């Protein structure tokens, strides 16, 4: 089948490290942590009391209060990132624009409107069904971020949602690129949003023993690949890429950040939350992405790791990189985990980490893994410890692995 090339022409993001892309990126390159004590919810009885919480977000700066109250926080983040990305790409459609029929959305989220779900279950149990919000269901369902984007930004083409937990928005970007490559759309809004700093989600992940309890040192708690890592730190936010068919982007003189070169997927087929020991599943997703890109392991200049800071992920991912890249290349390729700074954005992680790969390519600089102090014998690769590294980046891979054993790898490349 004749595949069309797909490039990235717009970026948007909302994170604890800034409410726009350039603020985020300068903080990431400076090695700043977005983690702090949780303020939004009561965590007095929850073991994990820290997160990369967005403290200064006011949705009413972007839309009316009336519109805002119909959206869960996760969709609000996605909406703002989408607006930024479309503006960055200099793309807008009115209702009658025929091009709008060729523009779509692929949004990813791990647990969608969990904040609204908790709130409404609380109302149901304490006040009864007739006091529940009529917007409750619409706010909770995971596809609403993409649905509302299509309504508000007039995107009438393919529209779907991926819900593969922490791999969700990596799947969204890969799937969106495939939609364009096969000719079903020319422009896709692709990314994800997540807002899971809620009592249910924090307590639930804590009970799964997935979260760091290093509450005394919030900024040092997310320490991927460090021997003393003790779990992931919850993050939140959204990131969106504008994907566009290459010839169209060139014809309209768009700024092209990078090309989507490869998309690989695999399933661990092993355990509901734990990675398969040895990382065989993760290795196959990286290999599939490189095969799709037509690149040898030695041609990958940077890996943005899943790197959650859980004991199991980081050693398994290290083993997987050795399997996928071969021992020789594995020890030379720079690897970093930006989750050391952003926390874990769950379903939005793949999108913000794709964005980081794309900016690494643009600027020729690799973001660091902060809080890397004590080497772990089982994590012995080059994790770009603590300080950014200026080096040309022509290709970058990002990994995203989700509960359920979903493994996704994406490869981006420079366009000359």
């Amino acid at each position, binding site marked *: 089948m004749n595949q069309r090339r797909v490039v990235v022409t717009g970026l948007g993001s909302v994170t604890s490290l800034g409410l726009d892309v350039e603020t985020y990126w300068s903080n990431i390159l400076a090695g700043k942590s977005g983690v702090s004590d949780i303020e939004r919810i009561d965590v007095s009885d929850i073991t994990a009391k820290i997160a990369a919480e967005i403290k200064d977000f006011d949705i009413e700066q972007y839309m*009316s*209060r*009336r*519109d805002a*109250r*119909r959206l869960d926080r996760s969709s609000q983040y996605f909406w703002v990132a989408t607006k930024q990305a479309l503006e960055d790409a200099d793309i807008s459609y009115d209702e009658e624009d025929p091009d709008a029929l060729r523009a779509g959305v692929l949004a990813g989220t791990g647990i969608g409107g969990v904040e609204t779900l908790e709130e409404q279950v609380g109302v149901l149990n304490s006040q009864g069904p*007739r*006091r529940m*919000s*009529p*917007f409750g269901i*619409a706010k909770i369902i995971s596809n609403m971020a993409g649905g509302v984007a299509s309504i508000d930004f007039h995107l009438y083409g393919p529209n779907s949602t991926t819900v593969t937990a922490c791999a969700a928005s990596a799947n969204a970007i890969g799937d969106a690129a495939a939609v364009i490559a096969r000719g079903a759309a020319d422009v896709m809004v692709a990314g994800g949003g997540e807002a899971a700093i809620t009592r249910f989600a924090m307590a639930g992940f804590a009970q799964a023993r997935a979260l760091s309890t290093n509450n005394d040192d919030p900024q040092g708690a997310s320490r991927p690949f460090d021997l003393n890592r003790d779990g992931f730190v919850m993050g939140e936010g959204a990131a969106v890429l504008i994907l566009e068919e290459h010839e169209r982007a060139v014809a309209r003189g768009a700024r092209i950040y990078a090309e989507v070169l490869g998309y690989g997927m695999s399933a661990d087929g092993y355990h509901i939350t734990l990675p398969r020991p040895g990382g065989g599943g993760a290795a196959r997703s990286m290999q599939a992405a490189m095969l799709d890109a037509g690149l040898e392991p030695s041609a990958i200049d940077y890996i943005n790791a899943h790197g959650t800071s859980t004991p199991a992920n980081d050693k398994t991912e290290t083993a997987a990189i050795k399997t996928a890249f071969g021992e020789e290349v594995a020890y030379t390729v720079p690897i970093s985990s930006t989750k050391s700074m952003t926390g874990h954005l769950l379903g939005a992680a793949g999108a913000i980490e794709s964005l980081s790969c794309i900016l690494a390519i643009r600027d020729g600089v690799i973001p660091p893994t902060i809080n890397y102090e004590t080497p772990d014998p089982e994590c012995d690769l080059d994790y770009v410890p603590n300080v950014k590294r200026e080096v040309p980046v022509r290709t970058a891979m990002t990994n995203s692995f989700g509960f359920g054993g979903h493994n996704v790898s994406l490869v981006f490349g420079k366009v000359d």
Partner: protein
Amino acid sequence: MERAEIESKMRELLVEELGLDADAISMEARFEEDLEVDSLGVVELLMALEDNFGVQIPDEEAESIGTVGQAVDLVEQKLNG
């Protein structure tokens, strides 16, 4: 409760709880056509009326509400019999 008081409280809840534009609200304003209150918004309106005025409005009676003034009528009738 005096009608004027009901009207003023009505305006307040339409702005505060339904997020409507204060300038667009008049007693003649139609919820659906003028204020763009959709079927979900109507449910929210009923909840707000029940909460703010301490009345019960069954769905059948809600169908009589077309304008802001008619909502005031219904509340007034409920409150004052």
